[in-house]
């Protein structure tokens, strides 16, 4: 069970890569990507819904036929529109895991697993049924029908079914997106295990920065049908920062205590833990000394080098830059700053970042446009 899946023989390094170019437009959407991906490991395709990541994956599978397309996987050309080459999906050595498992309802779990396996010549079969079943922990489900499985079990069967096709490229379209958090945590360990054992390239599409951070080696960020950034994940950014940089609603949660209430303006003052800084926000009165927790969105925080005067913005607090998260090709940069014991994140444009010449340890002023009370801690 722990030996690597014997899926692909080592080839010369030059051919161990995936080259893809797809240009597809229908209605108001255009996908135009040019990619060079490693021939091994997991490439995480990250983007918000509508960014084109699923369309792109469908192009890899041949389920979508782009007007212009070129695809070469570890030395084999699957598609080349200039030479009129288009391999239909069933001729491509792929495994495809759909968002909604997509098991055949008329076949048992075993029948589903064997569906692809039976269609591979036995000399080309590289994953024995038993191994796939063990790897995904579905041995006890083989006789069941798909409608008698939980969402997580269905997805594990779907992954095993795709592996049994002995793919040379495994494509996964948000395999966890349709699952609730509990089911997600039931499947994720299997994916992580696969990641360690698969010798073939995997393209993993997701809008969850957390999944990408846990599973991917190589990162591709898609936005509006175009590649925003691509590179090895570790070099491109620190894993822990992934959720912050991408999620539109990057935010910080900070703790403090109520220290004052202005009756006239109905403003509540909160002193942040471990500092003298005070945040003010419109709120009803709370008792002095009561612990509270507030949420500050990164996009509501801007950075000044000096204390600004005469601003309409209420909250202006000193802070120290801790770290800077910047991703090639992204227009925005995320700054982590410390205020006493608490951390606040600011999202600023790359332009402003370069103009201010920000460095770690630097003292700055944070200008906070909006603060919301999360609840009393």
């Amino acid at each position, binding site marked *: 069970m722990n030996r690597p899946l014997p899926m692909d023989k080592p080839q010369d390094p030059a051919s161990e890569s995936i080259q893809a170019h797809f240009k597809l437009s229908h209605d108001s959407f255009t996908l135009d990507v040019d990619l060079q991906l490693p021939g091994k490991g997991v490439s995480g395709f990250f983007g918000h819904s509508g960014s084109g990541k699923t369309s792109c994956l469908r192009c890899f*599978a*041949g389920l979508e036929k782009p007007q212009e397309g070129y695809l070469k996987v570890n030395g084999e050309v699957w598609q080349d529109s200039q030479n009129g080459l288009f391999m239909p*999906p*069933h001729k491509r050595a792929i495994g*495809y895991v759909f968002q909604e498992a997509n*098991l055949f309802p008329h076949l048992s779990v075993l029948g589903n697993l064997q*569906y*692809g396996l039976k269609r591979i010549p036995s000399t080309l079969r590289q994953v024995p049924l038993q191994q796939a079943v063990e790897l995904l922990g579905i041995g006890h489900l083989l006789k069941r029908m798909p409608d008698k499985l939980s969402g997580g079990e269905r997805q594990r069967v779907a992954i095993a079914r795709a592996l049994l*096709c002995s793919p040379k490229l495994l494509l996964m379209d948000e395999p966890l997106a349709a699952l609730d958090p509990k089911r997600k945590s039931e499947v994720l360990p299997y994916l992580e295990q696969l990641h360690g054992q698969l010798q073939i390239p995997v393209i993993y599409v997701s809008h969850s920065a957390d999944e990408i951070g846990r599973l991917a080696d190589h990162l591709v960020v898609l936005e509006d049908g175009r590649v925003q950034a691509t590179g090895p994940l570790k070099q491109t950014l620190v894993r822990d920062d992934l959720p912050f940089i991408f999620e539109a609603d990057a935010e910080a949660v900070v703790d403090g205590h109520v220290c004052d209430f202005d009756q006239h303006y109905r403003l509540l003052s909160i002193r942040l833990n471990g500092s003298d800084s005070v945040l003010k926000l419109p709120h009803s009165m709370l008792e002095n000394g009561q612990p509270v927790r507030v949420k500050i969105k990164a996009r509501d925080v801007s950075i000044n080098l000096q204390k600004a005067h005469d601003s309409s913005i209420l909250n202006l607090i000193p802070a120290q830059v801790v770290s800077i998260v910047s991703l090639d090709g992204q227009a925005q940069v995320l700054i982590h700053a410390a205020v006493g014991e608490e951390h606040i994140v600011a999202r600023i444009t790359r332009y402003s970042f370069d103009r201010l010449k920000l460095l770690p340890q630097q003292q700055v002023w944070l200008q906070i446009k909006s603060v919301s009370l999360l609840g009393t801690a």
Partner: protein
Amino acid sequence: MPLSNDDLSAIWLTLELASLTTVLLLLIGTPIAWWLARTDSWLKRPVGAVVALPLVLPPTVIGFYLLIALGPNGYIGQLTESLGWGILTFSFTGLVIGSVFYSLPFVVQPLQNAFESIGNAPLEAAATLRASKLDTFFSVVIPLARPGFITASILGFAHTVGEFGVVLMIGGNIPGKTQVVSVQIYNHVETLQYTQAHWLAGGMLLFSFVVLLALYSSRQAKQGWQS
């Protein structure tokens, strides 16, 4: 025995006609239904309307045009004659052809609905699992559309058993050749043989009831299976 030899041969002929027609209709109707379910062509609506015509046309109209087309001066009649098959009007083969036209919508429409309800997802899954289109049709589409095939077969068979107007127009009333049960009932009533008419009519009533009961039961079972 209240049934005469003519009655028995009419029953036998009816069953033969309905069985053969149903088999032919499944063979012809399946590709038409598949095409109607999957195409985006502008021809979809016109073809769908033509297939549905027998639902609204009086059977005599279909019978009249078939009589002309299959007759010695019609295009089909000239073709069959030049092929050495002779003229098909007033023959069992003619009845089969008429029945296929007449019952076509009863087979195509349930199949088309069944194919449409399968959707794209299972077909795409099959394609990513190395199944060609034809392979997918036999290994995924037909099993998933099974309730549709059952409904189509039952309706096609029962509707053919119940036809009268088309038969009379192109088949006439030849015992053992084109005289089916519905026509035989007409003969009995014309000659005031009400007892025999009762037996055949009652039999048809019972048959139709059993068929519809089976159909509705199978639909319920299908819904139970889906939920």
